């Protein structure tokens, strides 16, 4: 069983009734866990006061 540490933290936030009617649930959860772990690592960055950068370079 893959540990779902990061996923469990978010479980309470998930919309009730998300209907993922697929036999691949275990694979989806494992993939999600890896993605969330990488995203959670971003908390190590000094993000205070940093605004999003959507990379819109339309103005020279």
């Amino acid at each position, binding site marked *: 069983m893959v540990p779902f540490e990061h*996923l469990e933290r*978010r479980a309470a*936030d*998930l919309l009730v009734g*998300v209907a*993922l009617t*697929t036999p*691949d649930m275990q*694979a*989806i959860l494992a*993939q*999600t866990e890896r*993605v*969330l772990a*990488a*995203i*959670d*690592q*971003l*908390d*190590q*960055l*000094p*993000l205070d006061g*940093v*605004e*999003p*950068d*959507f*990379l*819109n*370079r*339309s*103005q*020279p």
Partner: protein
Amino acid sequence: MSELPWMGVVELARAIAAKKVSPVEVMRAQLARIEKLDGRFKSYISVFGEQALETARHAEKAATAGQRLGALHGVPVAVKDLYDVQGTPTTAGSRFLKTPAQRDCTAVARLRAAGAIILGKLNMHEFAFGPEGINEHFGTPWNPWDTSTHRMPGGSSSGSGVAVAAGLIPMGMGSDTGGSIRIPSALCNTVGLKPTYGRVSRAGIWPLAWSLDHAGPLTRSVEDAAAVLGVLAGHDPADPSSSGHAVPDYLGQLAAPVRGLRVGLLTEYVAEADPVVQTTVRAAAQVLDGLGCTVEEVKLPLARHGAGASFSILISEAGAFHDPLMRKHGTEYSPDVFRRLLVARFLSAGDYLKGQRARRLIREDVDKVLGRVDCLLTPTLPIAAPPLTATEVDIGDRKESARFALTMFTRLFNVTGHPALAVPCGFTGEGLPLSLQLVGRAFEEATILRLGHAFQQATEWHRHRPTDMG
């Protein structure tokens, strides 16, 4: 077989302008080669044989009359099947998108305006969402560097990489959201250019993730990539991310000396690659040093956060775009793509914005290093082409997920938007190609193209041809 299909974009354009070869002769030779070999390679989704020949006849007539239609007069080109080409369906590698496009996308319109002839549309990972380049609907393209084992062609622009490497087209357009131009280039021994974000219009190209998507060419030489970028670059009001930066003469600047350019060898990425890749990229650094460049080792402290930022942005944007389609056509998606898109339902708006905020810091980190050196040098990939069925790969003495490994060194520069060029730089003992990546300052494609061209003038790696497979 004819040597014409092996001529490059610039070489063909010059030969046609000088009336040494005719566009019809070139097109017939290219179509004959596709007819003979692509049943095995599976690089095309559709080939516009008659239509392309008819356009070639017009190009020939104009050439005979001394008219020049543009920089790519009479040159056959192909596009990944997520570029809109008027009157043909843009399948995006899926089985359910069948409506013909009402108009050409901006990139195709610019290629046509320069005299290029659109020969067909190239295979790809479904919806451009996968670095392996597999496609269960149209068949997975065969990597031409191994005739016995089906190896990953690299994705998502798998058809573009295979067609260019196998002499089935001199230039194939690709798209790159986490490495999808550079990965097939590296695995198939072609040049792949991901320009700066905003440099080439995305209008009319099926999106994967709006703020990470880039359009660019796969070719057999850096010179050809420069010629194609010169045609494609420039502001397009139809694309809100398109830049108004002036477009330099990329081809004209190619031969400028590289002596004195400062190249930063990115040590974190080199150290994470397989030993054969490390040796090969260090040897390439020696070649650049021999050309008079100053090569120094550099570090990017925030590079390790590229994965988190890339995942949060890519999956959130792709999930948002596909949500309505998934509700209607869910069972028609490939399971691997559908599964990855479902991950988006577990991400919050805060996760997405965390990625976009991290992006600012990571971009500034790259900009800071690029303030000291003119470009970065990294391996394009940590490995050579794995077998198609591999889910894990060995990198030195450690194991890594194949999918994760393929984007390890490419996805960072989709997050930051810097231009990146994949260039062939060697082969493994098994004869599989290896590739280096040059990364430049924003809108300074001319510098990395100049360096890549100088490297190709000093080496022969890009001239190797795979064995034909009938």
